[in-house]
C-alpha cells in the first residue's frame, strides 16, 4: 500500500516536472559577473514579458564543447542556448553540433533598418555564431610596482630590466605568441604569415623563452586580477572586464594597458537537433536578447563592448557606479588604437599544432 502510494506520488512528480520542463529554457553561460550581466540585461526583461517561461542557467560554458558532443552522441540535448567563445563556435559548427543561423531572417534588424548581418559585421565568425560582446585580452599592471614610468607598450611584458617581477600569462598560445612575435620585431601585418611556419613558431617560443622563468601561467582568467591584488605579479594578461572590475569596482591599485589587445567575440550558439517547440522558444528569446537595445543594456553591468554596431551609441552608465561605460569598452576608439582581431580561421587550423608545441615547450 505504502509502495503504491510512493509510486503514484513519484509518477505524479515526474509528470508535473515534465510539464514544467516544457515551459523552461536552459541557457548555458560562464557564471560570475558575466552571467549576471546577461541575466539582468536579457533574461529578466524577457521573463517579465513572458511570465510562463522559466529560464534555467547552467554555468557550464567552459566545458560546453565536450558536453555538447556527449549530448549529441547520446541523442539527448538538454541545453537550449549556449554561450561560447568565437573559436569554439567554429569548432562546434564544424562538428555539426551547432545549428546554422540565418542572421537576417532569425534576428532582429537594427532600429534604422540595417540588416542583422550588416549590423554584426565581422563579429559573425562562423555560420552558427550569434555574437553578443566584444572582449579583449589585455595586460594589467600593479601601479605601485612599475615605478614612475608605467608601461605603455605590450613589449613591457618582455622587458624584465625595466619591470622586474613575475608576469601572468595564459597557459595557451593564443595572444602570447602574437605578442612575442610583435615584440621580436615582426611587423603586425606579417605576424600570422610568420606564425604559420615552423620557424615562426619556434621564434615566438624563443621570445617567450626570454621570460619563461618569470611567468606564472594561468588557466582561469580570474587568476590574474587576484595575483595582481596579492602583489604576486607586476603585470599579467586577462580579459579587460576582469581588470575593469578590479580597478573600478574593487579599487585595486591596478593600471590597464590598451596596447596590442587581442579582440575576441563571445556569443550564442543553438545546439543542433533541438525539437521544433523548443527551437521556436529559443529563437523567440534570441530575437529579443540580441537586439540593439539589449546588447547595449548589457554594457551597464560589465565592460564588454556590444557586438552590434548600432548598440555602441546606446551604451550608458554603469548600473551601480554611475560612471559612463563607453570609455571602458575595448571597442572605444581611444582604446583600440592598436589591436589584434583574433584570426579565427588561422587558429582553427593551427591551434592543435601550435598548442602541442607550446605545451611541449612549457614542459621542457
Amino acid at each position: 500500500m505504502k509502495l503504491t502510494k510512493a509510486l503514484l506520488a513519484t509518477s505524479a512528480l515526474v509528470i508535473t516536472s515534465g510539464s514544467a520542463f516544457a515551459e523552461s529554457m536552459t541557457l548555458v553561460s560562464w557564471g560570475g559577473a558575466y552571467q549576471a550581466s546577461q541575466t539582468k540585461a536579457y533574461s529578466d526583461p524577457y521573463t517579465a514579458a513572458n511570465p510562463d517561461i522559466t529560464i534555467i542557467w547552467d554555468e557550464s560554458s567552459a566545458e560546453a564543447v565536450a558536453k555538447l558532443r556527449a549530448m549529441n552522441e547520446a541523442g539527448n540535448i538538454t541545453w537550449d542556448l549556449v554561450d561560447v567563445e568565437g573559436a569554439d563556435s567554429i569548432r562546434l559548427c564544424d562538428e555539426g553540433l551547432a545549428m546554422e543561423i540565418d542572421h537576417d531572417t532569425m534576428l532582429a534588424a537594427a532600429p534604422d533598418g540595417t540588416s542583422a548581418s550588416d549590423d554584426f559585421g565581422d563579429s559573425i565568425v562562423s555560420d552558427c555564431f550569434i555574437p553578443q560582446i566584444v572582449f579583449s585580452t589585455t595586460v594589467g599592471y600593479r601601479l605601485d610596482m612599475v615605478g614612475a614610468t608605467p608601461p605603455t607598450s605590450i613589449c613591457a611584458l618582455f622587458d624584465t630590466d625595466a619591470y622586474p617581477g613575475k608576469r601572468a600569462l595564459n597557459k595557451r598560445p593564443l595572444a602570447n605568441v602574437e605578442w612575442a612575435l610583435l615584440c621580436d620585431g615582426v611587423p603586425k601585418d606579417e605576424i600570422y604569415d610568420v606564425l604559420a611556419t615552423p620557424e615562426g613558431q619556434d621564434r615566438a617560443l624563443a621570445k617567450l623563452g626570454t621570460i619563461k622563468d618569470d611567468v606564472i601561467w594561468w588557466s582561469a582568467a580570474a587568476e590574474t586580477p587576484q595575483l595582481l591584488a596579492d602583489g604576486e605579479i607586476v603585470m599579467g594578461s586577462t580579459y579587460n572586464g576582469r581588470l575593469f572590475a578590479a580597478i573600478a569596482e574593487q579599487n585595486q591599485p591596478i593600471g590597464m594597458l590598451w596596447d596590442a589587445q587581442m579582440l575576441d567575440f563571445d556569443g550564442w550558439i543553438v545546439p543542433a537537433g533541438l525539437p521544433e517547440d523548443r527551437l521556436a522558444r529559443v529563437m523567440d528569446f534570441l530575437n529579443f536578447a540580441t537586439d540593439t537595445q539589449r546588447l547595449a543594456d548589457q554594457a551597464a553591468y560589465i565592460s564588454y563592448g556590444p557586438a552590434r554596431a548600432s548598440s555602441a551609441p546606446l551604451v550608458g552608465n554603469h548600473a551601480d557606479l554611475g560612471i559612463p561605460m563607453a570609455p571602458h569598452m575595448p571597442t572605444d576608439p581611444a582604446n583600440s588604437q592598436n589591436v589584434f582581431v583574433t584570426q579565427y580561421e588561422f587558429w582553427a587550423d593551427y591551434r592543435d599544432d601550435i598548442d602541442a608545441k607550446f605545451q611541449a615547450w612549457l614542459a621542457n
Partner: protein
Amino acid sequence: MSETTQTGPMLSADGVPLKTSLARALRRQKTRALLLIAPLLAFVIITFIIPIASMLFRSVENQIVSNTLPQTVAIVGDTTAQEASMDEMLFRVLYLDMYRAVEAKAHTRLGSRLNYEKSGISSLFRTSGRKLETVGEDFEDFFKDADSGMVKGPFWHELMQGEGGEDLLNDRLGLLTDLTSLEASGDLGFTLSGEAAALLPWAARAYADWALFTAIVDEKDVSTKKPWAGVYAALALDLADPATQSAVAAYGGSGAAELQAAVANIADMPATEFRAYFEDIDDKWVAPETWALLKVFGSQYTSGYFLNAVDMKLTPDGIEQRPDNERLYLKLFKRTLIMSMVITVSCIVLGYPVAWLLANLPMRSANVLMILVLLPFWTSLLVRTSAWKVLLQQQGVINDILVWLGFVADDSRLIMMNNSTGTIIAMTHILLPFMILPLYSVMKTIPPTYLRAAKSLGATNWTAFWRVYFPQSVPGIGAGSILVFILAIGYYITPEIVGGTDGVFISNRIAYHISSSLNWGLAAALGTILLAVVMLLYWLYDRIVGIDNVKLGG
C-alpha cells in the same frame, strides 16, 4: 528395496537421485545469489564498463575518414600519394564524395579530424565545401542555356526513374547510411533506371545520391524537386565522353530531346577537368602531402592516436619519432608516475605517526584527533587546493612568516607553488586521509601486548618497533599506498591550480583533449595507456608484496 539402494544411485526422499537433487539445490542457490546481485551487476556494466570500453575503443577507431570519402579513400589506398595527386579520375570521385559529405555537413567534421594530424586541413575542407557548389552551378547554367527543361525536377525524375538500377541504388544507399547513420525507412518513392545508369553512369550516381538524401534526410518528394548543382557536373562528365555522345544520339527514352540538345551545344560546355577545379579551390588539394595524409589515415582503424600518445607519428614512410620540440607525453607519463610515488612516500612518512597516535591514544583524545583527520577530508577539494595557494604563494602566509622571522630575505621569498613542489605539498595533504585511515584500522588490530612482550624479552624500543610492530602494520601501508598512488595518478584539478608548468600531470592533458581540443581519440589513447600502466603496477605489486597482504580493516 535394499537391493536397489545397493546397486542404483542414492536417492533422496522424493525418489530423485541425490546427486541431481543436490546439484539442483546448488544451482537454485547460485541463481538466487546471481539474481540478488543482478541489479548491481547490470548497473555497473551499463554505467561503468560499457562507457569505459566505448571510450577506450575511440583510441583506435577511425571510420570517419572512410565513411565520409569512401570511394576516394578506396582509390587512394591502391595508389601512391604522388599518383593520386595527379589522377583526374580520383578528383571526379572526390567531387561526388565531397558533395555528398557537404550536403550532410560531414566534411568539416572530417576536416577537424585530419587537422589533428596536419595543420590547415580544417580550413581546406571548410572553405572547399562552399565552392563545390559553384563548380556545379557553372554546368547547371550551361544546361539551362541548352534546354531550360533540364534544370527542372520532372526532367530528371523521368530520365532516372525506372527498373534495373537496384544494385547501384543500394550501393549509394550504403554510402549514405555510413555517412549519416540514418537508415532508410519505408518507400523511397524512387527507383533507379538501369538504362539511365548504363547511359549516364556519373549522372546516375550523383542523382541517386541526391534522391536518397532528399528522400531520407530531408524527407521530401523526389519527383518534382530540382537536384543539386553537383548532379549537373556529373552529367557534364558523362556528356563530355564521345562514346556517350553517340549513345545519346541513339537514345530514344524520356529526356532524349534535352540530352541531344545539350550534346549539340557541347562546344560551349565548361571543361570537365576536376583536378583543375580543385586546384582552383585550394592548391593543397593537388599537393601530394594531402593525399599521403588521406592514404595513411584512410583505414577504418588506426594506430595513429596511440603513436601520438607516445610521442611518435604515423607518416607515409612508416612510424617516426616526433621532433624534440614536440615530445611531451612520455615525459608527462614519467613525471606523473614519479610524482605519484613521491606523494605516496610522503603520505606514508606523515601518515604513519598520525595513525599510530590515533590507534594508541586513549579513546577521548583519539576521537578529537580523528575529527582533525576527517575534517579536511570532508572539505571540498577545490577549497583545500585554493587554501594551499594562499599559504604557499610568494606573498603568502608561509613566506610572510619566514620573512618576519628573518629566515629569508624579503626579496628572495621561497617559490613553493606553480611548480612540482606545490603539487607535491597540496596533493600529499589532500590524499593523507586515504593513507591514515587504512593504516589506523590495521594498527587498531595489533595488540599492544606484543610490543610489551618484545620489550620484556629485552628488545630496545627500535627493535621492538621494527621487528614486531612494523611488520604487522605493513598490510595497512600496502592498502594506503595503493589507494593514494592510484588516486594521485589520475588527479588533475590540484596540479592544474598549483602545478604551474613542471607540476602538471598526464591527466591535465587528457582533460584538455577531452574538453578543449575535442581530440577524444588521443585522450582515449592516453587514458588507455594510463590504465594499462596502473594495471601493470598493480600486478607487480601483487607479485612482489602479494595482494593478500593488503588490508583495509580488521
